[in-house]
Structure formats: C-alpha cells, structure tokens
C-alpha cells in the first residue's frame, strides 16, 4: 500500500465554477485567498469603452492550503505545536546526550500524534457517507502514511543514532510497524479451525520470517500436523537458536555477535546441504531464507511489497551487522530487483533512497515538493528537528536566513488564514530569529479586528513582544471602527490608547459640541477616570477639567469651581466658540449673594470677555457661528461682571476694616 502514490500528486484539479471566457485574472487576498475573475486591464490606447461583448462576470474565491484547517488536522497542528514549543525550550536549556534523548523523544511524540491523527482519519474515511469527503480523507491519509514511513526511517538514520552504528533492530521495528499483513494473516490463521490447512498458512510464515518474527513463525509451525517430524523439530531448533540483537541488549560487541551469527548460519547451511528438509519444500525454502540465499529473496520480493522491506529482510539474514553508511550499496540492488519487474520508482522511493545516501537536503527538497501538497507541516517540523540534531549544515541564504527558518515561515504563514490557528503560527514565528518578527508584524497588521475580544488578544500579543507601533495601529483602527458606529466613548478610549493626538482632539471637539447642544455630559465614566491620559490633547484636558467644574459646582464647592472655571479661561484651553458657554456657567456664580469671584478674578473675566468681543467685531468665522441671541447675552454678562466687581470691591474693603 505504501509503494503507491497519492492522488493529486501529479495533477490536482480544482472544480471551480470558472470563467467561461479565456481571460482569467487573479488577485491575492489575505493568506491563502485568491480571487479569480475574467476581465481585462485598462487599455489606455483604446477609445473609452471596450468592445460591447458582455462577459459573464463571475468571481471565484479560491483558497489554498486548507488541508490543515479541517477538524482532524487541526488537532495535529495544535498538538504538535506543544511538542515544538517544548523542544525549542529544551534546545535552549540542555546539551549533549540529554538533548539527544530529548530529540528522540520529540521525534517520537510527533510521530505518535501523527499516528493518532491517521487513525482518526481512517475511522472517518470508513464512516463517511459523502464520497467526496471520503476521498479527500483517503488522500490525506495516504500522505500521512507516507510521512510516517519517511519519518520513522529518518529517525533511525539521523536522530536516534546508536553509538555502535548498528541499525538493523530499529529497521526491523520500522518494517514491522508499517507492514502488518503478515501479522494480520497469522491472526486469521490462528482463529481458523484447522490452521495448517489455511490457504495462506505458508505465506504468513514467510511474511513473518522476512520481518524476523521468529517466535510467531515457531508458533505457526507448531500447528502443523507434521510438527513432530524431525525436519520440523530441526527448523524449530534453528529458529530458537537464531542469534538476535534484542536478546543481548548490546552487551556484545558487533564482532562477537557477528561470530555467533556466522556460527549459526553455518549450521543452517550444513543442515540444508545434508538434505534434512528435502521432504518438505516449504521448510527447505524457509531454511534457505535463514541461510540468506540470494535467489530465494528474489522469489519472495512480492511478499515484501517494496524494495526497502526487501532490503531490511535481506540484511537480517545476510548481513545483520550492517552499518548505516553501507546501507545504500545494498539498497541499490534491492531497487533493481523491483525495477526489473517493472515497478515504477516513485517519489517516495527517491526520498528514502536519498535518506539512505545521507543526502538530507535532497530528502527535504523532495518531501517539500511531493508531500507538502497542502501543508508544510511535515517538512517544517522535520527540518527543525534535524537542525537541532546538527544534521543540517547551517547554510545561510542570500538574505541571512536558513532552511529551517524558511520552512517554518512557510508553515506559519499557511496557518495565518485560519480563524484560530493563526495564534499557533505566531508561536512558530517567535522561533524564527531572522524574519520572525517582521512576519509577526505583517501578520498582526493584516489580522481582521472583528471584535473587541480579538483586538485585545492581538494587543496582548504585541505587548508581549513590545511592538509599540502595532499596538497603536490596532487601537487607531478600533477607534475608527467605534467612531463609525457612533460609539464615541469607546472610540475615545481607543484613540487615547493609540496616543493619537489629532484623532483624540477631533473626537473631543465632537463631545464638547454635543454638550453645548444637549447640556448633558455623556461618557462620564471615561472622562472621570482618565488620569494623566487627559494631557494627551489640550482639548481633552479642557473637557475633563470642565466636567470637574460641573462636579464641584453641583457639590456646592463654589469657590473651587469658580477658580477652576477661571483657570480654564485663563489658560485658553477652551475652544473660542465654547467661551460663551463658560461665561454662561459663570453667570450664576456672579449672581450669587456671596462674593465668589474676587476683584482680581473679575478683572480677568472681563478681560476674556473683551477678547471675545474683539474677535466677534473682527468678523472671524467664530462670529458666524454665534446667534444674535448669544451676542445679546454677552451684554448681559458685561452687566453681571460689573455688578460683581462692585460687590467684590466692597466686600474686600469690608474684610480689611474688620
């Protein structure tokens, strides 16, 4: 099953209701979004309207790389994200063999998550009713199966490297994990009423034998009717005595093992030549396998199903102490075996072959081209792992990044288009030292601010990374949004946060205008709790102080209120048009029986009034904004001021004499 190729590997057709006309055009949207439409480009040479042929003007919204957005694959993204982040932490904190074992662990974790994901996909493919959906499940499943195969193999070669360089045991485990037909057959046979009569009885035995499952083979043989025959007993003894690495736990040196093994094989050879098994051709074949007979492997290659299975089986019986660097000599022979019988050598084979040849870059390159249909999940995580294992020469790119970062950036940006996975993408970008930060900036800038919650989330991300400029932009955009919806209070607080003076001033003016119209303060909760933020804009300072004045006035602290009002006028903080309102507010204070404005303060007020009148006479645009009635009020105010002045002088005189 693994020797074949997934659909869509060569040509993937997307059924999109397309444009009937040939002139297809496209524009990038955000992330993986592309708009295709039929149209033309401005041709300034033509005289105005192009030809009157009416073209159907449909638009296609085409999306790319959405494989990682499905329910199941999302789990893969989220769970491997944790492993990734943990691994980066360990790389930073531990060294040497400790780190090495962490790498192996991470590699296994990645694979375990992928396996779990495959199982779910398989389950879904089985239960799914919709044929389209099932098909895409199956496509995905196949890709995942291949990734597991490659990853398992590369882990043996590059990550979990044994100190003595022997790798047969691991290879056997790898083969057993991915080729399970033999085991499945064996189970069927064991459940059969007459196991030895089962048509696949010998096939199961051979398949298991090729994977080194000696105990299972012995068990199956013991079910045979002639199991008490001498030939069977002899084979059983050979199998029992077969030296196996796993039994020695590396207590033996390779040379010692090799000796034991040769001894054992000579024994097999001897018994075979003496014709112990001549009466049982199947047993004879079996012992020939044990002897590592070249021809018998050729016969059995179909049971292996692939050259790499054949390779491992051959090594098991021909050369169990083979070391990684020598593997590729043997691999070529096995591949030839298969290509002679007409099997096409495909991408997967090439990837594995490149791995055997220790050409890691080729492995990554081919995997990128072949397996990243839809996502960079595999190559990015895998390359990161290899990078930390020191297997990649840190070849820098023209603009100062490396292969690991290149792939991580691709993976992270492929997550950007999803409505929740983008947060995972950001964490990956954090570990890209060269371009990560600028990518995050770009990410954030293009994130749509659908609601406050999302905006706060983004702000949090920016603040964690000390991205001041982005914080300001987000606040500004949110401010404009609130403003458009007429939520002035929210808009004000956003603008304040973005420290945007112009926008804040403009907005404050609107609030002031609204007050002059209605006489009611709105958004008092914000205004009363601004603190030092009010100094961002003069207008805002004024508004806050003015509001304070009203509070003082209402609570009866007239003296304080009066001096605050005065200082507002004196500091020229208020817009001119608003002075009238301020004077109006002053009137009741002037008219009260107690003297509130002393003579000095009254002079200041009179001075301000004169200034206003002067400007009105100068016919500036302010005068047009004032109604005649308001102008009359100024005269009235003049009177109030004079009366207050006399009152104040009198009172001040009185105080002195008493």
């Amino acid at each position, binding site marked *: 099953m693994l020797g074949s190729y997934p659909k869509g590997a060569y*040509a993937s057709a997307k*059924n999109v209701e397309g444009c009937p006309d040939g002139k297809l055009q496209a524009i990038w*949207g955000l992330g993986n979004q592309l708009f*295709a439409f039929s149209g033309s480009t401005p041709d300034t040479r033509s005289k105005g309207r192009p030809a009157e042929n009416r073209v159907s003007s449909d638009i296609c*919204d085409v*999306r790319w790389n959405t494989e990682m957005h499905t329910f199941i694959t999302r789990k893969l993204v989220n769970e491997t994200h944790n492993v990734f982040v943990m691994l980066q932490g360990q790389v930073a904190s531990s060294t040497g063999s400790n780190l090495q074992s962490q790498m192996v662990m991470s590699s296994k974790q990645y694979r375990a998550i992928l396996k779990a994901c495959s199982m779910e996909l398989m389950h879904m493919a089985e239960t799914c009713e919709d044929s389209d959906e099932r098909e895409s499940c199956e496509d995905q499943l196949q890709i995942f199966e291949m990734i597991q195969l490659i990853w398992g193999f590369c882990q043996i070669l590059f990550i979990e490297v044994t100190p003595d360089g022997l790798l047969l045991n691991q290879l056997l485990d790898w083969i057993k994990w991915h080729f399970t037909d033999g085991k499945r057959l064996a189970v069927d046979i064991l459940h059969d009423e007459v196991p030895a009569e089962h048509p696949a009885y010998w096939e199961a035995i051979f398949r298991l034998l090729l994977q080194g499952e000696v105990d299972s083979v012995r068990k199956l043989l013991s079910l045979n009717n002639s199991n008490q025959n001498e030939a069977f007993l002899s084979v059983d003894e050979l199998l029992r005595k077969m030296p196996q690495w796993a039994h020695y736990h590396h207590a033996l040196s390779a040379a010692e093992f090799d000796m034991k093994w040769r001894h054992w094989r000579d024994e097999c050879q001897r018994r075979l030549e003496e014709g112990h098994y001549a009466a049982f051709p199947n047993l004879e074949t079996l012992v020939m396998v044990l002897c590592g007979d070249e021809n018998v492997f050729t016969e059995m290659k179909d049971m292996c199903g692939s050259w790499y299975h054949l390779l491992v089986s051959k090594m098991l019986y021909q050369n169990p102490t083979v070391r990684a660097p020598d593997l590729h000599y043997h691999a070529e022979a096995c591949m030839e075996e298969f290509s002679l019988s007409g099997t096409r050598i495909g991408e997967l084979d090439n990837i594995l072959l490149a791995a055997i040849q220790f050409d890691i870059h080729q492995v990554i390159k081919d995997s990128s081209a072949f397996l*990243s249909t839809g996502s960079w999940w595999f190559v990015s995580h895998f390359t990161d792992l290899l990078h930390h294992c020191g297997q990649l020469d840190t070849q820098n790119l023209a603009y100062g990044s490396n292969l690991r970062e290149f792939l991580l950036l691709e993976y992270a940006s492929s997550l950007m288009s999803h409505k929740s996975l983008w947060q995972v993408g950001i964490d990956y970008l954090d570990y890209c030292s060269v371009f990560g930060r600028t990518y995050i900036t770009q990410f954030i800038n293009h994130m749509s601010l659908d609601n406050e919650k999302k905006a706060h989330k983004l702000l949090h991300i920016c603040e964690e990374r000390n991205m001041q400029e982005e914080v300001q932009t987000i606040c500004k955009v949110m401010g404009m*949004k609130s403003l458009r919806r007429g939520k002035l209070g929210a808009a004000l607080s956003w603008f304040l946060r973005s420290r945007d003076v112009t926008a804040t001033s403009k907005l404050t003016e609107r609030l002031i205008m609204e007050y002059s119209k209605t006489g009611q303060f709105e958004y008092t909760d914000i205004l009363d709790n601004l603190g030092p933020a009010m100094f961002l804009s003069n207008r805002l300072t004024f508004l806050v102080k003015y509001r304070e004045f009203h509070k003082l006035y209402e609570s009866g602290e007239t003296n304080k209120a009066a001096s605050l009002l005065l200082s507002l006028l004196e500091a020229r903080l208020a817009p001119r048009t608003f002075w009238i309102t301020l004077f109006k507010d002053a009137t009741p204070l002037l008219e009260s029986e107690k003297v509130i404005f002393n003579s000095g303060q009254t002079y200041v007020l009179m001075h301000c009034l004169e200034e206003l009148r002067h400007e009105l006479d100068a016919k500036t645009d302010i005068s047009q904004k004032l109604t005649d009635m308001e102008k009359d009020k100024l005269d009235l105010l003049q009177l109030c001021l004079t009366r207050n002045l006399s009152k104040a002088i009198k009172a001040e005189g009185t105080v002195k004499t008493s």
Partner: protein
Amino acid sequence: MFRSSGSKTFPMAHEDLIHDVKYDFHGKRMASCSSDHSVKIWDCDEEDQWNCTAAWKAHSGSVWRVTWCHPEFGQVIATCSFDRTAAIWEELLGEQSREGKQSHWVRRTSLVDSRTSVTDVKFAPRHLGLLLATCSADCVVRIYEAHDVMNLSQWSLQHEIQCGLSCSCLAWNPSMFRSHLPMIAVGSDDPSPTAGGKVHIYEYSDANRKWRKVEIISMVTDSVHDLAFAPNFGKSYHILAVASKDLSLFSIKPIGNLGKEPVSAGAISKFDMHRIAEFTEHDSKVWRVSWNVFGTVLCSSGDDGCVRLWKANYMGSWKCIEVMRGNGKRSEQQLEPKTTIVTASNNQNIRLPPPGIMNIKRNSGWPSFSTNADKGKLYY
C-alpha cells in the same frame, strides 16, 4: 468539514468587463470596478459568504482601478476612470450603515487635474501618511495629500511628476524601513520600443522635497501593464514584478546607505538593479501581477487566459508552481494514480467535474504548495 476548503463562485453582476478587484487590508471586504461605470463593495459574512453591500455609478466612463485605504483612516477607497478623474469614496458613518445590510458610500472628492484618462490610483503605505498617487495617459504622476485625516474632502496636489511617457500603472514600494526613502515605480504602455525603458523609478528626497527619477529599467521596452513591489521584510533589496510582454522580476538594491541614515541631502540614491527572473510561460501579454501578504508567492495573469503562481525556493530561484485555467475544459489528461488499498473499495468512483470547471494543473516545482482537490460548489 472539508467543504470549507473549497472555493466558491458568486456572480458579480457587473454589466460589463470587470477591470479590477481588490481586497481590503484584512481580506474581509472587496471592491470591484467595471466598464459599466460602477463600483461594488462586497462583504464577507460570518458564514464566509460574499454579499454585495453597495453598488453605485462612480464615474462617467470605464472605472479602471480601485484601491483600499488603510483602515486606520476609516473605510475609504479611491477609484480612477476614463472620465479623466480619480475619486475618493468614504463609507458613511452612523445610522445608515447600521440599518440593514446596505452601506452608503459618498464621494469625498474628485481629483480633476488630469486632462486624460486616469489609469491607476494607489494609496501610499500607511507610514507615509494619507497620500494618494495617480497616473494618467498624459504622462503625469500626481501625488495628493489629505492634510486632515479626519476630513477627506480636502486633498491638495503635492507633486506632479512628468514622466515623458504615457503612464499605465504605478506601484508604491511598501517597505516600512526608515532607511528606505519613499519610492514609486511607474509603468508606461507606450508601444514604441524606441522610446526607451518603460519602467521608471522615482524616489522622494526629503531635503529637496521633490520626487526624482532614480532609475529607468531599460530592459523593459515593451508596454507595461502592471507593476507590483513585493513586501519587504528587511531584506537588503526590493523585488519588483513587471507585467509586460512577459513577466519579469527585478531586484533593486540600494547601494551605499545600507542600514545607515538616508543618503545625504541632494545626492541621488544609487541602485544595483538586475533581472532575477524572466518568464515567457504565458506566451502572450501579461496583464496583471499580485503578491501575497508575505511576498512569497506571486500570481500573474496573461492573455493566454491562465493564472500562474510563482514561488522562490529557499535558494531564491523562482518557479511556476500552479497554473489555473478558466476555459472550462480539462486541458490535460489527468494522470490517474494507481489503485491503492485505501481506495480499492471505490476506485471506480472517479469524480467527473461539472461542466465549466477551472483546471488547476500542478507543476513540479520546489518548494511548492497545491490546492486541495475538488471542492467546487455552486453558491447561487
């Protein structure tokens, strides 16, 4: 759940050729313009469906291009037209827009300085402020500025750049790095090859307060239809895609002031420029180029009716990674893969596309990405 990965089609209902379609900054809104003099605004709702929320007659001639302003300035677009004007439109604030799904756009201003068709219009990158560049067939690029970002009805013409050639398109360099001066590339559709290079590059000098021509790409002598700078991520060079007789990519590298302060007053910046890729795959005129957000994938469309996607591998070599066809025919025999165990149960079930599909052929490029298979659904 796999359906979400599909693509969808919706009718634009323009009565004539569509000239331009643009996403807004966040990819949630879209504007389209057409020869029928109108502009339409499309919004993406929660269910990922595109709905037309506004449509109006914007000009009295074909509307060539539409462009979105950064959202921090509000919901603003600019259009340009054969009627010799460019216009700025803003979505109305307040109640009208909240009621129902329709939004209202008002013309904030008309820019009437050109005496000929205005062929392109682009807002400057946000960090330069609220600037708008237009170019027109009368060989002039005009830069306008809004002095008060809260009041978009007042724009003043800041600069007029005489290009000497009829302009067809322009592009701002989006680089946000302070060491890069504001830059504009202008393309000309002058058909005469003797008129010299058809892409001019201008740079703004703060000291002189002037735009000055710093480079002419003399390698491009055929008329240019579109230009686009790739977003710059702190690379030492800019990449400019040029759609002309074929597709070219140029790298433009400032010399001498790398990472330093902008060049001293008065001096003209120098550039090291070379063509990093030239593609003739379209085999005909290339009309349009567009970069993705990260500047890693370029999409181009040409007279051959194909849309092609281009991507550089990590060594910087560019390759075509996808081809989309809109001719409604399966152009190439699809290679049916071998039957596999997982699909053995239903390998007869080869899906036949509905009539009028768009084919996407995947080329072997590296590194590459591809589309998900067959998810077409009709949505109307």
